[in-house]
């Protein structure tokens, strides 16, 4: 490990220099990979460029206007991707909470097998990534395991002959369910740690006082779990705005744009438009996403404060 030069003769070095010596590597890396890239990305969002020509064409805020309403091709594309993003952003955290809260309560109520089940539930989180998405693709194929299962259960009408990802009506719901599947582990874990922090004496006291279970849930458990729920929803919203790997790997936004999301659109504009001058647009879209993330976080923080 690098010994910061400030350490060798601490008495002759002013204290502030020691502090800066310690943070220097982090700042140096951040100056190159962070400040410079953020700055150049922001600048690029006001220009048109295809990545190859030596100069950028400055266009002011035209990229933003094109994306939001001016361009007849891009604006509708953005709206559709935005609508899909919104659906994912609302449904995925909601379903995650709806599944993981009862799961955590159930898990908390048993003693035997709790540790084993907790590990099993956690597995989807650790392995989330390309490999597991391909495994899902495999079971969702037209002749895949899920269709076979549905047919053998006599639910053949629910089976999807083109595959769940090939049918425009089922593709997005399927992806949302897989996102829920991979975010339930962390949510369950957080709820479980919240439940375990509840003082068991509190329950007993409530029972002695003759409180109905419904009241115990509403007055004692829920207030404790509310901040956790807020955190889970915030995480889910953030992941939806930031993450698009599942969409890239499983459908590439198809069929026919039905699973396109904003981050995926930015990715496409960045890397798959050949010589077209779309890099500025991609940057602008990235900054719109950043703005949305900040706004949603602030709104969430406000709500949290009001709740408290």
């Amino acid at each position, binding site marked *: 490990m690098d*010994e*910061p030069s400030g*350490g*060798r*003769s601490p008495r002759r070095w002013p*204290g*502030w*220099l*020691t*502090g*800066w010596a*310690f*943070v220097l*590597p*982090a*700042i140096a*890396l*951040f100056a190159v*990979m*962070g400040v410079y890239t*953020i700055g*150049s*990305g922001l600048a*690029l969002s006001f220009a048109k460029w295809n990545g190859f020509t030596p100069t950028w064409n400055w266009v002011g805020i035209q990229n933003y206007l094109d994306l939001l309403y001016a361009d007849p091709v891009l604006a509708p594309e953005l709206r559709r991707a935005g609508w899909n993003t919104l659906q994912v952003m609302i449904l995925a955290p909601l379903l995650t909470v709806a599944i993981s809260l009862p799961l955590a309560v159930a*898990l908390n109520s*048993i003693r035997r*097998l709790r540790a084993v089940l907790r590990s*099993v539930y*956690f*597995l989807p989180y*650790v*392995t*989330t*990534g*390309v*490999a*597991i998405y391909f*495994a899902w*693709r*495999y*079971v969702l194929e037209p*002749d895949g395991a899920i269709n076979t299962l549905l047919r053998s259960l006599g639910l053949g009408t629910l089976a999807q002959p083109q595959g769940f990802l090939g049918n425009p009506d089922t593709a997005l719901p399927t992806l949302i369910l897989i996102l829920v*599947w991979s975010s339930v582990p*962390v949510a369950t*874990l*957080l709820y479980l*740690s919240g439940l375990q922090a509840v003082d068991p004496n509190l329950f007993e006291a409530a029972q002695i006082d003759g409180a109905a279970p419904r009241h115990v849930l509403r007055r004692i458990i829920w207030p404790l779990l509310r901040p*956790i729920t807020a955190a889970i929803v915030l995480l889910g919203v*953030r992941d939806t*705005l*930031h993450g698009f*790997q599942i969409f890239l790997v499983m459908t590439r936004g198809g069929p026919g744009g039905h699973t396109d999301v904003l981050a995926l659109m*930015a*990715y496409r504009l*960045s*890397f798959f438009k050949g010589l077209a001058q779309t890099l500025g647009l991609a940057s602008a879209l*990235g*900054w719109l*996403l*950043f703005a949305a993330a900040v706004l949603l976080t602030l709104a969430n923080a406000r709500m949290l404060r009001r709740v408290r």
Partner: protein
Amino acid sequence: MTGRRVVRAVVFAALFVYALISLYPFLWMVSGAFKSRSEILEGRFLPRDFTLDTLTQTWGRLHFFDYFLNSLKVTGLTVLGVLVVYSLASYAFAVLDFPGRRILYWFFVALLFVPGITMLLPVVILEKQLGVLGTHIGLVLPFVNGTAPLTVLLLTNAYGSIPREMREAARSDGASEARIFWSVYLPLSRPAHVTVAVLTAVPTWNEYVLTRVSISDPSRYTLPLGLESLISSEVPRYNEVMAASLIIVIPVIVLFLFLQRYFVNGLVGALKG
């Protein structure tokens, strides 16, 4: 009494059903990896002719051994870089006093809100100019930088929770700042370092987006790119795809089984922060 027993049975049944749902794609991944190509698209779960050929072929002829080494290199360097760079910085944030400390700290943590996609394109453009695009170092640098918010948060908390008296005692014994950091804070924060290491290693091992747009030379492919190259052929051979997926997932599962509590501590700690 029987009513309570029925409730318990229902609870257990529900827990087992969800355990099955959690494991569902893994079970098919394992079954697919041991099937031959002729059998892979039949709906049967257990392979009729159990074969190891798919795995050995994927490992050898399809170069997954090489991809494995590349992934190991990128992940190892990233974890090392993260630990060196941010343990130093977090120590300064937690215990040293210098002008700009609070602002810098919040700056690093606020980066959590910058979406990866916003940074992706400028990073690629910059790396092209620097000539590191497409190299493993070109992956490691942004990966290390990308972990900054979470790592600084976790490590600053960990160092901050060590009693100040220990530092004062070491100081009065004449230890330098570097010495205190190295001999007092680092050994006492082992659990936090392991947590940071696993929380860095797993996403790096699985990283696909930046790797995909920067690495073009197949000899530098990491495992996720190798996996993708299998599926981009016209008719994906799912037995090989599942064998490759298994090769990616198994090290992560092993790591998780051994270091489970560090994952848990890290996630809970990160959210409290």
